[in-house]
């Protein structure tokens, strides 16, 4: 069994679940014959045919609506939006229908759908292709928002998302789609949704992050450790519902917390984490919670992309601030 990338792990999870559950269908633009703009659905049409691997017209509102309808009537659709920037025409269907299907029908119907979208910047893409707007969905009651950061978690979390009886927004950090490879056994084992994963244990500071920012966070932690700072790293993985208990337990131990995310700062998931720490873990803090984030500005084009995305230096500076507070 060869090591695979994150995007290959997405493909592996889709293929596995389609082979096990005939109710699973995938749909989206160019996902069939083309295999997807990032090749996440490559070969699926050959294995499972065009009835279950559906190339749709370029109409995201329709993709989302179709997905809601299929899910409400017993299928388990996995919809792909080519980029998160194109999900908004489907926002109405997701927020007004998918998220509240169970509530509206008093439990008679549910919406076991997964809405997949590559998200985040850093690949020199054009406009609308680089934003991180996970907070928009995390804010909506009835939606789960899941973001894997490694091939193994992409596989396990996507399986869990497909099996979840309620809608899941599954955001794939495209910047690290092919950055590392990992041994991911195709055993159909799902990972738990609704919990954080502690990637590294430490005593001095807790770094909380998700998605592609895991890369810079791990690099920063490595440098900090060389300076003698003991860093605990938490991959949030499921940003909604948030597993605050894992974060609180860590902050109780370290007394310091730096939240790192690529999304713009205001009203982002980092704000929610900082608020919950303030509510429930304030007495453990040795310094105010720091947020290292993108700017409250439109995600820029190629040249300034690197300046927008938090880098190791910014993370290290925030950690130093908490240590020297």
């Amino acid at each position, binding site marked *: 069994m060869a090591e695979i990338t994150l995007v290959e792990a997405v493909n592996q999870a889709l293929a596995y679940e389609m082979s096990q559950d005939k109710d699973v269908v995938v749909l989206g633009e160019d996902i069939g014959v083309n*295999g997807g703009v*990032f090749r996440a659905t490559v070969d699926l049409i050959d294995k499972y045919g065009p009835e279950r691997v559906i190339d749709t017209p370029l109409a995201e509102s329709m993709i989302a609506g179709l997905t809601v309808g299929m899910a409400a009537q017993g299928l388990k659709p996995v919809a792909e939006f080519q980029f998160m920037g194109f999900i908004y025409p489907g926002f109405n269907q997701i927020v007004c229908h998918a998220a509240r299907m169970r509530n509206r029908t008093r439990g008679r119907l549910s919406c076991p759908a997964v809405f997949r979208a590559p998200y985040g910047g850093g*690949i*020199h893409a054009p406009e609308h292709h680089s934003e991180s707007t996970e907070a928009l969905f995390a804010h909506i009651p009835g939606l789960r928002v899941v973001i894997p950061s490694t091939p*193994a978690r992409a596989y*396990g979390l996507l399986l869990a998302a497909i099996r979840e009886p309620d809608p899941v927004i599954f955001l794939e950090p495209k910047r690290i789609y092919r950055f590392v490879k990992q041994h991911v056994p195709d055993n159909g084992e799902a990972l738990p949704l609704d919990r954080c*994963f502690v990637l590294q244990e430490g005593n001095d500071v807790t770094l909380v992050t998700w998605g592609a920012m895991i890369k810079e966070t791990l690099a920063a932690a490595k440098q900090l450790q060389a300076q003698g700072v003991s860093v605990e790293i938490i991959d949030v993985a499921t940003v909604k519902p948030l597993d605050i208990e894992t974060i609180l337990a860590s902050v*109780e131990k370290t007394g310091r917390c730096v939240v790192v995310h690529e999304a713009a700062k205001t009203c982002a998931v980092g704000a929610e984490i900082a608020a919950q720490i303030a509510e429930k873990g304030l007495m453990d803090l040795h310094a105010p919670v720091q947020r290292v984030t993108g700017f409250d500005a439109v995600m820029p*084009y190629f040249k300034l992309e690197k300046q927008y995305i938090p880098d190791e230096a910014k993370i290290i500076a925030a950690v130093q601030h908490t240590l020297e507070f």
Partner: protein
Amino acid sequence: MKIFRLPDLGEGLPDAEVNQWHVKVGDEVKADEPLVSMETAKAVVEVPAPRSGKIIKLHGNAGDIIKTGAPLVEFADGEEDNASVKTTTATPKTVTTEPTKQASADAIFHLPDLGEGLPDAEINQWHVKEGDEIKTDEPLASMETAKAVVEVPSPRSGKIKKLYGKVGDIIKTHAPLVEFESTSTVAISEDAGTVVGNIEVSGQILDESPTGVKPLRRRKTDKIKALPAARILAKNANIDLITLTPTGPQGIITVNDVKAALTQTSATVATTTPTGPAIEGAKPLRGVRRQMAIAMSQSHKHIVPVTLIDDADIHAWPKKTDITYRLIRAIVVACKQEPTLNAWFDTQHNARKLHDEVHLGLAMDSADGLFVPVIKNVEKQSAKQLREHINTYKTQVRDRSIPPENLRDGTITLSNFGMFAGKYANPIIVPPTVAILGCGRLHEQVVAANGKPEIHRVMPLSLTFDHRAATGGEAARFLAAVIADLQLAK
């Protein structure tokens, strides 16, 4: 890379118009610096330099339309243009017409749609034969369609295994045309994996558990919990939180806890190390006077004193009554009735301890300073025993021979200052006790007795109590009990 070709600026955009050059021939550019603004059907896009280098040629002027994949800029150095892979990346929409099988394991190349919705094409001429090695973009075959004869380039490099059809055969669009030797990995690596931008690829193997590590969930009980404001206050004052006693809910150190420690420290500082401008000729206090200064300023810092004054009518007393004995007896009686004033108060922990026994501190003036020797268990002693104690202490204070243990552990204090002058005072409590009774100058005064003015001997009393430890009612009842006992004839 010597020649930089126009990448696809959107998704499958066929071309773009040169809006404005940001560089000219001869310029040195750095990677990611803007080369040119290009106007597409969607937007004006800055095209960044893919590399650093000197520019020797610009293809096109403002207003010219450049096709996607066509040369845009030529650099002075770099390898001769081998744009096969780049072109594939740059014109991703051709991928749609090329079978995606390229990325999969089987190596069959299917006839792409050579026009717009053409159903088939006729093989005009093969440019390769089975067993040939071919490079990407080299012509495979000439195909004749309803519209034109079209060269079909090879989508990849590799060895030709099989040709599907002979010259003159009609091949349906999307039907197999050529089969390559199975080297599918080559095909995959040539797929950029994205229609826009560049995805970073590395061969790094991640060795990490899918669920991460299991952290030790130490619920450390010895972990200090403190309000952030308390932490910063303690830090600025250089106070270690571990030395503080938390009074907040769930053992949280509050700002007040830090402040309490601060006043304690500053009280010590104020009395042990003089601050402020020095007074010329002043001599530092020593010994008893220094102790008095420290004790009094501590008292002043911590204690919340309230002084209650009243008179005891001692007209009924026989001649030669021992005043001090009567005062002690009255205090013992009052302590029994109102034990809250016979107590110690723990400022740090806001705790108090009530005493069953009465150890009386007796304020004594001396040339060296104030002494407060303690008579233990006054409640158990006769008038004669007490008098002996008092006389002994007087002598010992005078010749400074009083043992230190006799200066400790008082539970309440009596100050009989009235033998000199002064009727009332606000006596200062000695920590950790919570009450001191002062006795002023005995004198005669007109009092109302049985509805008539009479001249009686009265004893002015001043009771100071620590309002943190006792209520006003408790103190008033205590003083009432003292007066009641003092007003007895015997």
